[in-house]
Every structure is written in C-alpha cells, then in structure tokens.
C-alpha cells in the first residue's frame, strides 16, 4: 500500500531513520479524525503500566485528541496468538492504524500481510517486528548493550571481572543487549571475565542472583544489568560489595543509588527504553495517516544520563517511587512527559 519514497521524513528530528539505507514510506492520505488502536501484550509490570498511561495521556492532549475519533487499548497478556487475534480484530473492525508492542518480533508476518491488504497502518515499538513492511519505532537495543560495554571498557582500562545481569531468556531484546555488551568487551582487546546470571528484568530476581554471584564469584570490578538494576545495587549493599562502575537502565531507584553513592565508586551510566516511546509510535501512525513521509524504521535517541550528571528533580526524583522508568521524554518529538505526572495522573484527578 504505502509508496516507498526517498527521505527525509516530515519531522526529520523526531522521525530519524534507523540507518542510511532505511526506506521511507508515504501512505495515501486519509481524512481524519482517525481510529487508532494500541495492541499491548503483557500488562502487569511497571514499564507496561507506565506505557499504557503515557499512551492515554498522549491521546488526550488537545492537539492529538483533535485528530482522533477513537483511541482504544487492549492488553492480551503473554500469549502471542491472542495478540495476533486482537490485531486481526482491529483490522476487521476498520481501525485506521494499529500500534503494537509485540510479544514476539517474528510472529506477526501473517498479520502484517493482512494489515497491508486492508490499508491499515501498523506501527510497532519497544518489542518491534522483524520486517520491512511495517513501521518500527525503537531504541537501539544492541546499541544499549554497546553503550554499557563502552562504559565498562572506559572505567576498567585493564579489564577485570564483570557481572552481567541479563533479562528474560529467549527474547530478542535480551539477546541484542547481551550481544552488544559482549562484542564491545571483546573488541576492546582487554581481559574481561564475565559472570552471567539471569535477572529476568525483575528487581527481586536480579537481587537474588546478583547476591549469589557476589558470594560465589565476587568481588567484581564492574557490573552491567538490564532491568532489575535497583535490586542489583541493593545486593551489592547487602553484601558490602565495594561500589564499582555500573551500566544499567533508567529506573528511578537505580538513579537514586547512582547519585547517592557516586562518591563511593558507583559510577553509573543509565540509559534505556522509555515507555514514552509509545507516544512517538502514535505520533508516527498519525503522521503516516496524514500522508506524511515517515521512515520504515524510526530510531529513538537513548535518554542517557551518566555519572556525574545525575540531578535530582530532573534525572531522578528522590522523593518518588523506585519503580518507574525516568527516561520518559523525547524532546525532539515534542513529547515531554515526566514520569510522575504520568503515574500520578489519576491521583490528581481525584
């Protein structure tokens, strides 16, 4: 359906192409207001809850709301076929665009076919799709691993023992980040000895396995963790493990620790995949429906904050919950939510 055109995209700062050879799409212009759906998979973790709340908040912004006739969210759980069916249902019900956080990057080929036939714009984000036929909006997961790897190489000029706390086995996000870290450490030519454990992107699990690793294989000279970072730091504190350089995600709790213990050696880089990318995905979908040129694959900037730049009230919030992901704004796209305003919104409403 979409025409493949040459760039640049409509808002080049926001809709940055993934790479030099990324295709650009121009969909036939449709008249608004549009019906847009968000097909989420799993819902019961903070990241996803924050994401759904951000999506709602974004769709409710006056200028966005004016373009929308309907915005519907469905979460289908862990089961891929349920999500595929939900998208099929949206297609059959005549939605104009569908935004999806895919439970599986490779499983949606049949759906993509069907969406294409029906002229529906499909935009994937966070867990994107392995395809050239739908729009992807994502941070560079492997690049995230590279970033963490570089951080460790920089702080451990002589190499050393590294603890890598991984995510959920069998997911592409985990694999990409892991590969990024390993290729970087290897390429440095220094002697790194890596102990891997699976933290499942969960603070409790990450804390437990980190504690075990510290007790048996520690002490470590550097640590990297994807998700569960707050728990990993907690494990270090409990074990009285010396603070060492750390590459991790953007949980508020983790950044609190980074700011607090920077002087004692907890030198952090914190970067990740903010839940607000859902807003970018919706924005992309609208742009595509309006007939604007958009890249097939949008690369989001990593919201990186590194030691010693952690500022309270901006990069982290000392009075707030540990659990939300701070990196929640994409200024180049005009998306400037703070996490607390998202997670606290109903409270204020009451």
């Amino acid at each position: 359906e979409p025409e493949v055109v040459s760039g640049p995209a409509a808002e080049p700062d926001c809709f940055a192409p993934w790479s030099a050879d990324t295709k650009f799409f121009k969909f036939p212009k449709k008249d608004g207001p549009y019906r847009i759906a968000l097909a989420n998979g799993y819902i019961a973790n903070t990241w996803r809850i924050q994401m759904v709340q951000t999506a709602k908040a974004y769709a409710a912004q006056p200028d966005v709301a004016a373009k929308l006739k309907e915005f519907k969210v469905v979460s289908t759980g862990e089961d891929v076929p349920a999500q595929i069916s939900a998208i099929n249902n949206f297609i059959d019900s005549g939605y104009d665009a569908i935004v999806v956080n895919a439970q599986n990057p490779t499983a949606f080929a049949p759906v993509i076919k069907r969406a294409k036939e029906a002229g529906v714009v499909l935009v994937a984000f966070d867990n994107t799709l392995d395809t050239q036929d739908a729009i992807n909006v994502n941070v560079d997961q492997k690049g995230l691993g590279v970033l963490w790897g570089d951080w460790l190489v920089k702080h451990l000029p002589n190499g050393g023992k590294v603890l890598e706390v991984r995510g959920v086995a069998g997911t592409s996000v985990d694999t990409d980040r892991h590969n990024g870290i390993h290729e970087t450490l290897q390429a440095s030519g220094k002697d790194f000895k890596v102990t891997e454990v699976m933290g499942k992107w969960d603070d409790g699990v990450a804390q437990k396995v980190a504690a075990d690793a510290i007790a048996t294989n520690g002490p470590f000279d550097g640590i990297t963790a994807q998700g569960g970072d707050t728990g990993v730091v907690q494990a270090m504190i409990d074990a009285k493990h010396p603070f060492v350089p750390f590459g991790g995600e953007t949980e508020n709790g983790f950044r609190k620790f980074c700011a607090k213990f920077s002087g004692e050696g907890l030198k952090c880089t914190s970067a990740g995949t903010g839940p607000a990318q859902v807003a970018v995905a919706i924005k992309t979908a609208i742009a595509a429906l309006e007939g604007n040129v958009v890249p097939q694959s949008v690369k989001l900037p990593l919201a990186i904050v590194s030691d010693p730049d952690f500022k309270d009230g901006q990069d982290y919030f000392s009075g707030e919950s540990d659990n939300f992901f701070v990196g929640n704004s994409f200024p180049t796209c005009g998306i400037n939510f703070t996490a607390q305003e998202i997670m606290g919104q109903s409270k204020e409403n009451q």
Partner: protein
Amino acid sequence: MVPVTANALPQFIRKADPAVLTAFGCIILLLVIGGIYSRSFLSPEYLLQQLKVASFLGVIATGMMLVVLLGQIDLSVPWTVTAGAMMACAVAAYGPVGVALAIPFGIFCGALIGAINGIGVAYLRIPSMIVTLATNAVAQGIMVIYTGGFSPQDSATDAMRYLATGTILGIPNAAIIWLILGVATVFVLGRTSFGRSVYGIGNRERAAYLSGINTRRIVMIAFAASGALSAFGGVLLAGYASKAAQSMGDAYLLPAIAAVVLGGTSILGGRGSYMGTVAGVILITLLQSILSVMQMPEAGRQITYGLLIILMLLLYGRSPAIR
C-alpha cells in the same frame, strides 16, 4: 506392640520419615558438589545468604503446605505475594500509623485473598486449582489498577527492611522468623485439634465431617492462613528489595509447590511433615542458586534443574506400589 528391634533406635530417627532424611542427605550432597566447583559455596557468607533467601520461600511454602495437606493447592501465590508487598508499602505512606500498620496490613490483604479462596473451595466447593487461579487473576487486576492509577508509595518501611535483611548475632532475621514460624507450624500441625483436623480432612473430608469437625471452617482458615503467609513472604521480599514491585511473586509459585512435594508431602493430602518442607525449601533454593552462578546457558540450567528434581524424587519421593 512395637517390635523390639525398632526400640533400639533413638526416638527422633525412628519417627523421622525416610523421605525427609534423604532430602537432607540430598542437601549435603548438593553442597559437596557445589563445594567441589568452588570453595565459596561452602563459605559462611554464602550459606547465610542462602538461608536468608530460603526463608522467603520457606514462609510461602509453609502456607502452601497447609493447603496441600488438605489435598488442595494454592495457585494464587504469585499475586498474593505481590499484593501483600505492595499493600504494606502503600499503607506506609499514611503517616506513622501507616508505617506501624504496614506489615499487619500487608498480611491482612493476603489473608483476605486467601479467605476468598477458602470460601470458593470450602463453601462453594469449586476445585482449589481453579478458584485460586481466578483469584490470582483478580488480585493481579487490582494491583495493575492500583499501580497505574494511584501512584502508590512502594518503598519498604524500616521495620520491613530490618526483618528481611537484619541479623541477630550473625543470623539473618528472616531465618529467625522462619524458624519461629516453623516451630509454630510443627506445633499447630501436631498438637492442636486444628492440625489434626487438617490431616483428617486431607485424608477423607467426608469422614472428618461425620466426626463432627466443621471441615469447611478448617479449610477456610487454612486458605486464609496460606494467603496471609504468602503475603508475609511478600512483605519480607519487599523488605529484602527495599520496595514492592509488580510481578515480584511470579518466581515463587512453582518452587513453593516443588519444595512442599520434594519434602515428602503428598499432593493428595493427609500426609507430610514440616521438616520435609524445610528440607524441600532449602533444596530448591540451593539448587536454583548453584545453577544460577555456574556459568551455564539458561537452557542447560533449566534442563539440569528439571532432571535433578526428578532424580531426587525417584530416590525417595515415589508412591508405594499397588502391591
């Protein structure tokens, strides 16, 4: 008339279930194997760390054992744990009273979920496997709404932290709590009419009912207790991690069941001892921990974990032959 030969053995060995003894044997074997891999598996720090972590599972498995003894099961553990943790932290936002009430309130919420399970199983006679599955989904739903809509406080109180991570004379407080709970459980199961009724109902509820036991109340209490203990486990976990988080209970359901059964409790109810559950909890915790730090790909870890459990069960967990 006890045969004379048996009298020669000391009472506690004679009475001990061979399954429990073998389970403890397996623990020692596991440590030896771990020790061969790396000396640090035998270090006091590592062992105390395991004991601490085992205590969380131990508290949860205590509740699971109660319902398993009744011939039931509690699949609502994941979100009962989470709800207990999240509610305890949430209530702490309400001033000093809130802080003081955090732990009891968290436990209370778990007891409430457990009570709903109990009503379903005891009064509505719905199979426990399915009511508890449903209440788990309901608890999850409530927690999602709550987190998304109310921005609850989720950091643990100092008291929770102290219980979970503090030590007395080098012994983790969590382990002391588990010990106290364990002694209480042994007493309740062995010496109270509630405990006897639990075993009786597990064996044959109809006969227990006709003996004049209010079996429905006992079942209800056991489920409420299981919910409360799961939530208490959640409170401790929140103390351990300093905070409550979504899905923090996911990792506890299957290990809790496995620990209870590895400890020789019959999944059909009516048979099992608490010492067995203790052994099962330690076994599972050690196994998970040792596998986690041995540098083996996740696939290999899962396969080894599964095979070792089967192996241990074949060693001592077999049901009697029909003839």
